[in-house]
């Protein structure tokens, strides 16, 4: 479903500060893959995600989604295919608007916006059903401003928003790192459940080795702009915390 071919990316090219962040990444992710992506700070994980999402463009190489070359497709157009959750729980929702209004916009992913009522028809019912799956009681608070919610609640809503319009790919960039332990485990459970139910292909960047090992069916470790380990299926199941830790340079 997602294919990266020979991705190179450097910052500050041609200056003394030039840093080569990605040095020829080749990666193929299949439908239904749930990849956990680990590696040191500066290994290029976030840059890779940004290149997949279109926030950055590679110096060399190609990005294919379902066989279509999207390398030069602007970020908002790729947003129709890709759902994204950021580390900062404030980034995925509009604080001055209500829960219902935020979710109504998420339902329009990939569709043309018109002059129809945003919350008309069965939209409200769909949003309520969706919120119920969180079991956080938010289904009763659809008219509450999102700015009033906690980081965990906002991140939970962001995950719903990222997946409810059935994107082809879900990108999670350390999306539990800024949350307290309880909220983080809640969001991790929610992530597993939603990815499991929808079968969306997902890439999750994390620094938490236990979640990297326990979640998903494939583990990729990046190091110095290259893929150092790509463990799938049983190979990933056999991988231990100690082995993984030892691989960090």
């Amino acid at each position: 479903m997602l294919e990266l071919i020979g991705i190179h990316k450097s910052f500050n090219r041609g200056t003394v500060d030039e840093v080569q962040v990605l040095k020829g990444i080749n990666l193929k992710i299949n439908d239904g893959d749930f990849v956990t992506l680990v590696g040191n700070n500066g290994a290029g994980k976030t840059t890779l995600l940004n290149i997949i999402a279109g926030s950055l463009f590679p110096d060399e190489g190609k990005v294919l989604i379902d066989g279509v070359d999207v390398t030069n497709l602007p970020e908002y157009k790729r947003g129709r295919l890709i759902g994204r959750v950021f580390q900062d729980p404030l980034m995925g929702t509009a604080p001055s608007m209500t829960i219902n209004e935020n979710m109504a916009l998420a339902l329009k992913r990939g569709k043309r916006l018109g002059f129809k009522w945003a919350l008309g028809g069965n939209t409200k019912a769909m949003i309520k059903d969706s919120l119920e799956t969180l079991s956080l009681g938010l289904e009763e608070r659809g008219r509450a401003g999102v700015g009033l919610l906690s980081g965990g609640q906002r991140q939970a809503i962001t995950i719903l928003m990222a997946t409810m319009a059935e994107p082809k790919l879900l990108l999670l960039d350390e999306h539990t790192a800024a949350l307290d332990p309880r909220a983080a485990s809640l969001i991790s459970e929610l992530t597993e459940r939603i990815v499991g139910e929808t079968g969306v292909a997902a890439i999750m960047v994390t620094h938490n080795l236990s979640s990297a090992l326990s979640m998903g069916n494939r583990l990729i470790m990046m190091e110095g702009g290259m893929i150092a380990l790509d463990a799938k299926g049983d190979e990933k199941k056999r991988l231990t915390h100690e082995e993984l830790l030892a691989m960090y340079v």
Partner: protein
Amino acid sequence: MQGLIFLTIEQGLAFSVMAIGVYISFRILNFADLSVDGSFPLGAATAASLIAAGVNPYMATLAAFIAGMAAGAVTGLLNTKAHISELLSGILTMTALYSINLRIMGKSNLPLLNERLIITDEPLNAMMVFGIILVVLIVLLYAFFYTEIGLAIRALGSNPKMLISLGINTDGLKVLGLSLSNGLVALSGSLIAQYQGFADVGMGIGTIVIGLASVIIGEMLIGGSGILRSLISVAAGSIIYRMAISLAMRAGMPPTDLKLVTAVGVILILTLPQFKGIAKFKRPVIEPAGKVQKAER
């Protein structure tokens, strides 16, 4: 005295259309748009020239709105397509409009003597006409901001990154929002030109500050969340601002000091709450929401 109150309310109603325009760019879109200083006289110039040429005054007023929308679109395109900063995009449009307004009018001041206007000299007529226009606009805008596109425009000012990650093109929304804002400002300019009986090339100076003063006064005295309530409080803020000005003038303030007093007033409203003891009101937020968020992190 009673006559003065009516005059003030009439002016306040006509100016409140402008204040709502400023509210849309400044608060909803989070875009400090200075082009309104040019689009206000643009509306006045467009309507006055068309009316002087014998065009139906309602069509001329509508034309003013459309001219303002075009001006707003230029600012939006300069910002989104030419990647010029918000402030500079607005300043460029405003500066260019000065010449355009002179060309439209053919001279710096265009009187409207004995022309058919959308208002008459009968008592209370202007209040009624402006009142109807304002109510219709508030209802339309309220409805608009609950449509899909309206909702997306609100989200654009609140969290543009979210919209992009939802696959929504923010450039078009920004251009549309600025068009709407400047269209309203120009419409207000055309109402004022008809009310005072002339269009003048210099009548737009300080529009942004007056609009901002109305927005802040409305938010401080009425405030509250929700689009409808905000629109009403901005309109009320504009009328209250006019009343304060006319009281000050009655008390002997020379009209030439109007802009200075307004600017000082806005500065005071924004700075006084910093000092303890005087801090009765919550400090009005002037910085765009996005920047405030960054500071919180």
